[in-house]
């Protein structure tokens, strides 16, 4: 049994936790994925660490990883169908069946990801629907290469923040002072702690839920500080200070 690696771009990790060159000694180069690229690019796709970098691991772990990768990659129906970029091009030209394909590919993972951030199914369904409507209308504006997932997520985050704003308006009108945000936690992380020392995963787990939530919102989901404040229902200043504390604690844990 092994715990997944956190993969991403090393330069972004360095920027995040303030390391110099060469991350954590002989540990594999694990990193956090940054949600937002510069200059408004779609969130950059994560770059998986290369084989040589995970060679530090147990041979068994590496073999298991390879088998899994081979199995997954051999799903023939996946490798033969048109890529996302092509689908989006067709959707932009008005192809409804391409839109249906696109939906069946992406709605599931998007739904799960959104569900973990929304408190309930109704909100998730609303955000999902608004997101794909926007995709239908604006598919012709997609101009990236292999960035369809990040593009989709950036649309979804805007709709997610809008939905949270509407919720807050309704809550205030009803006189509620606090809109509780449900964090989806798991009691089973212990079982997944791997047989090796993934220090970054462990360090992340040791952060308090609020700190982790802020980091997740700003780094993984690519929200701005203001958007994170709305989604987490926490003052902007608190978002900034929690993000700074989280980074400091991570740096200390990994030093």
């Amino acid at each position, binding site marked *: 049994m092994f715990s997944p690696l956190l*993969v991403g771009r090393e330069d972004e990790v360095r920027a995040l936790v303030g390391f110099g060159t060469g991350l954590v000694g002989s540990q594999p180069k694990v990193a956090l994925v940054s949600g937002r690229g510069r200059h408004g690019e779609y969130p950059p796709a994560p770059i998986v660490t290369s084989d040589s970098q995970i060679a530090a691991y147990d041979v068994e772990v590496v073999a298991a990883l390879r088998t*899994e990768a081979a199995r997954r990659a051999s799903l023939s129906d996946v490798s033969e169908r048109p890529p996302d970029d092509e689908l989006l091009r067709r959707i932009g030209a008005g192809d409804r069946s391409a839109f249906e394909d696109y*939906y069946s590919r992406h709605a599931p*993972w998007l739904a799960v990801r959104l569900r973990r951030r929304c408190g309930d199914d109704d909100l998730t369904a609303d955000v*999902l629907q608004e997101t794909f409507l926007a995709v239908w*209308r604006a598919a012709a504006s997609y101009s990236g290469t292999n960035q369809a997932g990040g593009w989709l997520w950036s649309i979804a985050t805007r709709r997610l923040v809008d939905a949270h704003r509407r919720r807050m308006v309704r809550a205030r009108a009803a006189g509620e002072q606090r809109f509780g945000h449900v964090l989806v936690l*798991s009691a*089973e992380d212990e079982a997944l702690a791997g047989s090796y020392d993934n220090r970054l*995963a462990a360090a992340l*787990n040791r952060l308090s839920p609020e700190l982790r939530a802020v980091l997740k919102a700003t780094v993984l989901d690519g929200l701005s500080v203001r958007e994170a404040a709305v989604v987490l229902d926490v003052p902007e200043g608190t978002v900034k200070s929690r993000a700074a504390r989280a980074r400091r604690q991570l740096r200390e844990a990994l030093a």
Partner: protein
Amino acid sequence: MTWHISDQLVRRYVSGRLGDADAWSVEAHLVACAPCQAAVGEAVANTDNAAVVEHAWNATVDQLGSQGRVRTGTAGRRLLVLVASGPAARLAWLVSIVLVLAVAAVIDRMGMRLSQPVSLLAVVAPLLPVLGVALSYGSGLDQAREIIASTPDGGLRLLLVRTAAVLAVTTPVAFAAGLFAGSLASRTSVTWLLPSLVLTLLTLALGSAMGLVRAAAAVGGGWLVAVIGPLLTRDAPPVLTPDARPILLLLGVTAVAVVVVRRQSFETLSFRLEP
């Protein structure tokens, strides 16, 4: 990809039984990995989320209307949109420039035989960009000026883009007209180019102090006086001679310096009317 999400992880993730740190890496991976997206799709079919996905699909299909004429966002598109708002992109402007210059060129060609002392083209051509600049950013003539003034790019930058667009239109047309005007070519085809640029720059520079429409009127009027004045005393206008070129150049450079130094004055409008 050297790793993918194992089936067990997929199941745990989809059923909400995965901790934050592990879910983080799953989500980061899922954004870009088609096979794992498919695996999640299969797993979702057996959970509550399937109903959510289905429900959202029905709602989406109901509202699928027409698609808009959306275009990609690139720097080229930006330039196009900014230029299209100014006078340079208007057919009426283009037509009137062509007409004016054509008439001037014809008169020059005929006047060649009458040995007229000055080329009408050389007088008229430099005035056109000045007029164009006044139309670009004149008070009240750019209808959306108040909103534009509140944007970061709406001041000098927009003005420069539009000025460049105006020059890009008037210069080739004037050049063509100059060629048509025939053997006065040595006098007409480029005598107006330097004055064109210098007058435009002077308009911008003066515009930082007195508003572009007034500046355009002042510069245009000054040019006409400089050309027509000597004609009344039967001399060739000194402005159009090669000797004047260094002076014009100096004026141009000074104008550029003034614009640079006073660039902040382009950033706000002055309201002389009621509050």
